[in-house]
């Protein structure tokens, strides 16, 4: 019988402000937690994928292996897809396990945006996370890029800033149920609109947090872990990348442009493999670097019509107990956002929910969960559909 890859274990470091650990120390905490969760040892790991933190060696993945003591590997590589990296990495790991290249692949990330760098946004722009020659000289920051996206969205659909704010409000309702979330106090649309503008039309509460932390998962052949009833199925997975220079994104191609992203392409692949439609998804963790990031993905993935995501959220659809509970951990907006690896927290949360181990915030329908991750001004995406154990 063909080998089927599953998520065998997950781990997280402490999230928020972690001044006592280096990024490498955070990575070790997350990695060991995931390996332990799977009931494996470091010696069982023969594949390693990570997205290197910034300002570090081009051999960072090897440094991580050396630190953990993983001598022989048949795959050790990096994914340089920013926030989408840790979705892309699952597809690579799945292929490696199912082809026989590896038995157990460790995917790990950890960063110190809160206590380790000058500032998350400034650092990301200045190291070339965006175009250094034709964009950065015009004083663009990451919130400004997303502000340009949001302003165009509001124009194209006649939407209001309050539609964007709905995302932050709904996300905070979930965070209130997560004892580990950084921001747990309920907020209103007015709170969002009254928070200072960072880059119009985005207010502070439209922007994700700046955190330290990391996470890890182990991808193994089904039946490898200590308790296969806790193994999580990978029902479908797809990626799509467009451009990152905003002018070229705006010029677009075919049905796609700045506001109509290529996440639909990634989603179509994931839905087709899973044999599911958006209406059949039980919960979704949608990458929420900014409120607008969620709005365009909900629409492009087919959860609601274009131009209606604000209304869809205002109607309670993504709230706790709604028909599509979204970002049940509190997302990057309210739980934690430790840089590119922040998207991993959408996966670790989906795994907890699908195992039925999510405590006070456990969703009732838990057959499947969609997890998306995104980066570079909503221009590259990874979409996964995970399923509860069939063991």
């Amino acid at each position, binding site marked *: 019988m063909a080998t089927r890859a599953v998520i065998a274990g997950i781990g997280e470091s402490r999230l928020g402000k972690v001044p006592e650990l280096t990024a490498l120390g955070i990575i070790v905490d997350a990695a060991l937690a995931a390996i332990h969760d799977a009931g494996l040892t470091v010696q069982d790991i023969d594949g390693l994928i990570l997205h290197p933190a910034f300002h570090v060696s081009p051999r960072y993945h090897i440094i991580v292996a050396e630190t953990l003591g993983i001598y022989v590997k048949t795959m050790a590589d990096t994914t340089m897809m920013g926030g989408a990296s840790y979705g892309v990495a699952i597809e690579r790991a799945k292929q490696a396990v199912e082809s026989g290249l590896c038995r157990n692949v460790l995917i790990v990330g950890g960063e110190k945006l809160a206590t380790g760098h000058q500032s998350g946004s400034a650092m990301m722009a200045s190291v070339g996370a965006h175009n250094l020659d034709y964009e950065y000289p015009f004083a663009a920051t990451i919130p400004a890029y997303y502000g*340009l996206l949001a302003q165009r969205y509001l124009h194209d659909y006649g939407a209001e800033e309050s539609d964007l704010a709905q995302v932050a409000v709904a996300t905070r309702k979930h965070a209130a149920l997560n004892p580990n979330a950084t921001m747990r106090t309920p907020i209103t649309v007015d709170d969002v609109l009254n928070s200072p503008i960072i880059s119009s039309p985005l207010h502070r509460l439209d922007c994700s947090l700046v955190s330290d932390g990391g996470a890890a998962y182990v991808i193994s052949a089904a039946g490898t872990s200590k308790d296969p009833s806790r193994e999580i199925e990978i029902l479908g997975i797809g990626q799509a990348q467009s451009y990152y220079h*905003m002018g070229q994104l705006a010029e677009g191609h075919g049905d796609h442009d700045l506001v109509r992203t290529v996440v639909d392409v990634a989603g179509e692949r994931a839905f087709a493999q899973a044999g599911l439609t958006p209406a059949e998804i039980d919960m979704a963790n949608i990458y929420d670097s900014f409120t607008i990031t969620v709005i365009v993905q909900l629409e492009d993935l087919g959860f609601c019509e274009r131009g209606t995501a604000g209304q869809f959220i205002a109607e309670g659809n993504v709230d706790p107990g709604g028909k599509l509970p979204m970002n049940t951990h509190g997302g990057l907006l309210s739980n934690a956002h430790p840089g590119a690896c922040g998207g991993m927290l959408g996966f670790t949360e989906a795994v907890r929910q699908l195992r039925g181990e999510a405590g006070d915030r456990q969703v009732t329908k838990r057959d499947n969960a969609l997890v998306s991750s995104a980066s570079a001004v909503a221009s590259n995406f990874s979409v996964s559909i995970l399923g509860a154990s069939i063991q």
Partner: protein
Amino acid sequence: MKHITRPLPTITADNEEFWKSTKEHAAKLQRCNVCGRFWYYPGPVCHHCGARDYTWTALSGKGTIYSYSVLERAKGNPYENDVPIAIVLVRLEEGPVIMSNLFDYEAADLAIDSPVRMTYEDVDDRVTLPVFLPARA
């Protein structure tokens, strides 16, 4: 125009003709001799059809705002004390969309589809950036 402390671009063989044209306050972009289209940003091949046959061609300087965002907080960036800064995506009359800044505008000028015209900011001996002003009727 207000002062902005700017990170500066790297001038290379791929873009030196562009930066030379802005330095002369007469911006040019590559126009493909095969498909006739312009592209931005400068590069060694036509972004649309793959041809390497192109002519550096003067721009009209006319365009319209595709989107805008006024940056009000930029902690940790070189321009953090220069906010607010109006960042615009301008669709040039010739087709490409370019990121730049809008200066000397009134609130009503900062709107999608509003006409703008290119002007120049001499940053230092090496770099002149194309920036924009409202093109009021």
